[in-house]
């Protein structure tokens, strides 16, 4: 137990170190490529006194090193500067959007896990030969499609042609004042199309990964021994194989869940989901550097522990799979 606590503490410290380096890397990148970013926003017709005053308000009144130290201190307390476009602290701008992205990311991840589990279980049982053949054909096709194709087809057919699901935004305009259950139902309806557009390619990736691992398990000593003892294939699948690949599922969670929350920019943008991606694209278009930095740091803060966890589990798995 003490070893585990020490390992997690080391993971935490390492994540902090990497996060600090990411902040430094991004700050240096911005300083080298843009110098003082506020100079882009200051009207040259303003008097030097007024320009100095604005620089002071936004915290750009010092040299690079002093600003870096100040920025680092602010990041440690959760402050990421003031957004040029929104004229609000970046943390407050991010806070409103992150909740919606977290919801969509987790919802689509949940859908992907359900779809993947369903496909894996049914295609590995007897009695579903068609499904197995169908998934063999469909998996490479979906893996080869760009992320936006499924989303665009869903909008065209399920949204516009048949009008089954809403295609834009995170909720209806007139949902204020309704009960919280009705509001949740509305959010769920708005999440169906973007959720499936993210979940289908993701579940296919999971299926491809797990199928490969299950194939490798066919020659594992414990499977051969169970078969020799006369254990049924169904029991071998559920009790032996699935149990063995479960830790890799946690590893995938560590790798994919943060990446999905940060990386569904294209699908979010297509469905007008006012989450993290909308902020990111707006910040890029408007050259809002503090917001862009804030978004990058938030992504890194989410990705680093995920990767660390995945690495830790992979190392543990490596120990357990010495038979290979």
């Amino acid at each position, binding site marked *: 137990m003490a070893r585990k606590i020490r390992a997690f503490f080391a993971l935490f410290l390492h994540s902090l170190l990497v996060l600090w380096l990411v902040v430094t890397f991004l700050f240096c990148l911005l300083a080298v490529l843009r110098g003082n970013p506020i100079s882009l926003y200051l009207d040259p017709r303003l008097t030097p006194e007024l320009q100095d005053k604005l620089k002071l308000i936004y915290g750009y009144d010092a040299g690079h090193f002093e600003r870096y130290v100040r920025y680092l201190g602010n990041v440690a307390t959760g402050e990421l500067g003031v957004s040029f476009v929104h004229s609000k602290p970046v943390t407050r701008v991010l806070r409103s959007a992150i909740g919606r992205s977290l919801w969509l990311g987790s919802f689509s991840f949940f859908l992907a896990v359900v779809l993947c589990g369903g496909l894996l279980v049914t295609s590995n049982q007897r009695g579903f030969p068609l499904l197995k053949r169908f998934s063999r054909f469909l998996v490479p096709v979906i893996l*080869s499609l760009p992320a936006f194709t499924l989303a665009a087809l869903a909008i065209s057919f399920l949204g516009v042609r048949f009008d089954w699901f809403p295609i834009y935004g995170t909720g209806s305009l007139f949902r204020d004042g309704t009960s919280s259950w009705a509001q949740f139902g509305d959010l769920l309806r708005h999440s169906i199309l973007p959720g499936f557009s993210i979940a289908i390619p993701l579940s296919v990736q999971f299926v491809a990964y797990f199928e490969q691992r299950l194939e490798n398990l066919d020659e594992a000593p414990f499977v051969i021994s169970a078969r020799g003892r006369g254990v049924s294939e169904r029991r071998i699948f559920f009790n032996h194989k699935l149990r063995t690949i479960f830790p890799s599922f946690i590893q995938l969670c560590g790798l994919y869940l943060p990446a999905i929350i940060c990386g569904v920019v294209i699908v979010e943008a297509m469905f007008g989901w006012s989450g993290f991606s909308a902020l990111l694209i707006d910040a890029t278009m408007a050259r809002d550097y503090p917001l862009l930095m804030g978004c990058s740091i938030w992504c890194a803060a989410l990705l680093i522990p995920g990767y660390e966890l995945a690495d830790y589990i992979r190392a543990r798995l490596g120990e357990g799979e010495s038979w290979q």
Partner: protein
Amino acid sequence: MKRFLFPVFLIAPSLCLLLPLSWPGFLLPPVLVLLLAWAVASRGGPPFGLVVLGSLFVLALCGTLIAPYGPHQVFASGEGHLLGLDVVGRDLYSRMLYGHRNTMVIAAAGSALGTLIGICSGGVISLVERRGLRVTKIMFQVYLSVPPLLYFLLGLCFLKPGISTMIILLGITSWPELARLLQAQVGYLRKADFALAARMRGMSEWRIFFSEIIPNLTHLVWAHFLITLASSMIMESSLTYLGLGSPLGTPSLGRLLADGIQHIEERPSVFLIGISLFLGWIISLRAFIRRYGRAHEVL
């Protein structure tokens, strides 16, 4: 093999002169012709993936020569146009041929750049002593902690949008994986018997690296180049679809797909052709990579 490659080296530059390609375009014919020639020479017979890949490559290379109109030529009526006109009135068939070439130029040149950076950085890092390994591991971690899309968005903030910018951004986002793979592989090969024998003969570390280790890495580099080519195509199309990739009006596969989806009810052929081109490239590339990886025991 060498006898076969020599005429290709001569043909590739003339192909560049033949086609109206801008500066990054000249990277495409040599890279892909070399790849194709090498693949044909090293395999027994042409597998399915390679046949499709070859046909698509020829289409990307010579497609613009058979395009009936220019990509920006505007027409008032859609009569006589094979796939009709887009919203602005440009011939969709010609734009498809030009877009196919543009996407391939961007993806191939971006992957080539990424591969080049990956080889250089992987080589340098692997020659650093063991003490440096921890530092380089953390450096990679820092680089990979920011999602690739964010690098694109950051890059688009700083650079002027255009084909060259896309190539540079695709290049600088795809190198770390190859560098890491090379680092691991070089570490393994340096301990191999042939490297030990070379060391016994009194060869320097640098000479061992260039004459003994590098020839053993070519399969890995090619396989990685092909994987990056597929992912670069997807990335370029996705960004163009969002309006963040190639400048507005530049024909590309992503734009063709967007046009196809827009007119899917009245003219499904546009979407079907766009998606077939895309799937043809990616599926044949994946099939080829799998065959190639198995044949040479890489990946």
